[in-house]
């Protein structure tokens, strides 16, 4: 629907937003905080979000590293907010052994 002349500024805006966002994300990325309630929140969010499309997968299915990647994959696919995804990840990584 958009014509070429509309599309170029659109791309430009998208690229700028992407760069700004990535910068902000980079600044935040290295500050992990221990949070005792994370496990509980994660368990709840897991129950609520992870059986909406397919059967609930077991925490034992994946290693910590695999959950790290897979939750990012599911976060994108299911449009799960990042903070909720991190809680679910912490819960699964603490429950897989």
């Amino acid at each position, binding site marked *: *629907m*958009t*014509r*070429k002349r509309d*599309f170029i500024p*659109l*791309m430009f805006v*998208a690229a700028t*937003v*992407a760069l700004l*966002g*990535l910068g*902000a*994300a*980079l600044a935040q*990325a290295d500050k*992990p905080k*221990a949070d005792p309630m994370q496990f509980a929140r994660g368990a709840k969010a897991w129950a*609520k979000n992870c*059986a*909406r*499309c*397919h*059967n*609930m*997968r*077991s925490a034992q299915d*994946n290693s*910590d*590293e*695999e959950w*790290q*990647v*897979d939750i*990012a*994959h599911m*976060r*994108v*696919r*299911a*449009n*799960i*907010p*990042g*903070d*909720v995804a*991190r809680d679910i990840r912490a819960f699964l*990584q603490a429950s897989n052994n």
Partner: protein
Amino acid sequence: MRAISYWGVATSMACAVSALGLTPTYAQSTEQAQILERLDTLQAELDALKKQLAETKTQADQSKKLAEKADNRAQKAVLAADQVRPNAWHMAGYADVGIEFSDGENSDTFTSGKFNPAFHFLYKDLVLFESEFQVTTMDGGETDLELEYSQLDFLLHDNAVLVAGKFLSPVGQFQERLHPSWINRLTNAPVGFGHGGIQPLSDVGLMLRGGIPVGERLFTYSVAVGNGPRLGHDGVELEGFGRDDNSNKAISGRAAFFPIDNLEIGGSFLFAKVTAEGEEEPDDDHDDDEVLASVVADSGDLQDLPLRDYDLWGFDAAFTKGNWDIRAEYLNANLKGLGDPDDDHGDVIEPLSWEAWYAQVAYRMSGVSDSSFFQKLEPVVRYGRFTVEGDHDLEDELNEKRFNIGLNYWVSPSVVVKSAIEFRNYMASEREDDTRLQLQLSYGF
């Protein structure tokens, strides 16, 4: 003599008196000295104790500092141990095999099914690369390799992810969420969905997506700008093309919300322009891009060819609670005609419209019986309908009502044996109905 002795006595007495007087003075000063001496020692001891106390205090302070340091280190170590390498990866995907018996035009057949390996690479929590292939054996025996998706996801913000590359279309729910065979409750896609249907499969471009909490509820969005669909032999081909055949970009997307925790309701759209027929169809010996490049070179710009509007909208709903999995989806697509029907001169191309919908209910028998066999069973029914209007040939070929009834056995949450009967009721009067028995084994890994 007497006098001498008198003086002697007096002297002795005086001596005795003075000695008596002197003795206590003498005794008193030694005691004092001793006390003083003791005081001195006590003072010294006190000083030593004070000094020791101060030393102990500094030592305690130092130990406290050391303990704090150690604790910090330990905490850091725990955090570090929890953290995964900055470049982490994961391989996943699925595979299926099946068999289909048919009483219609099709012969009974084994299907080697699909092998879909998927790769995911994550750099910190910043960038995810995901890609999936689909490897299938074609009817003629050749191996077909397709790129389902290949995308870089920039995790910009908790509520926004920017996707770039080839991605599954966000339109509706079946294609993006349910089509892998370990997720799909039946052996194939509903009629009008999947290949040859009107649900867009994929696109190449950019997509912004995410979830935003609104109070206790979640609102989700996906908006994509892509090369968009092309016109093909059997209508509009809704796949991601590596290059656009016109400069118009397609905009598509979906927004959804959860009125209650277990119910998701979504609305989708796609607006595009497709280049009208008239350009040379690329033949198989040529690379698409080459043909396109030569057409562009000849005509200056493909934009010179007439464009037709293609619009699609739809909605979907999913209720998943306990043993229930209930879903429904509706899609409506329109391709504008070309030319003025009242004008006798010049070609007129009629508009085309499509409609597809299905509703599906599955119930997992867990908890219904004590038998572990029964608990793994899941009966499922689906009814769907696909219609096109505007072209008789297409109408005869596509218009269909389809009813499926199936029984699944879940070996694990992602390993399933499916059996189903499919009743196809073609709406063209001369076409005979078709009943199929389908078996499929799928493994999601």
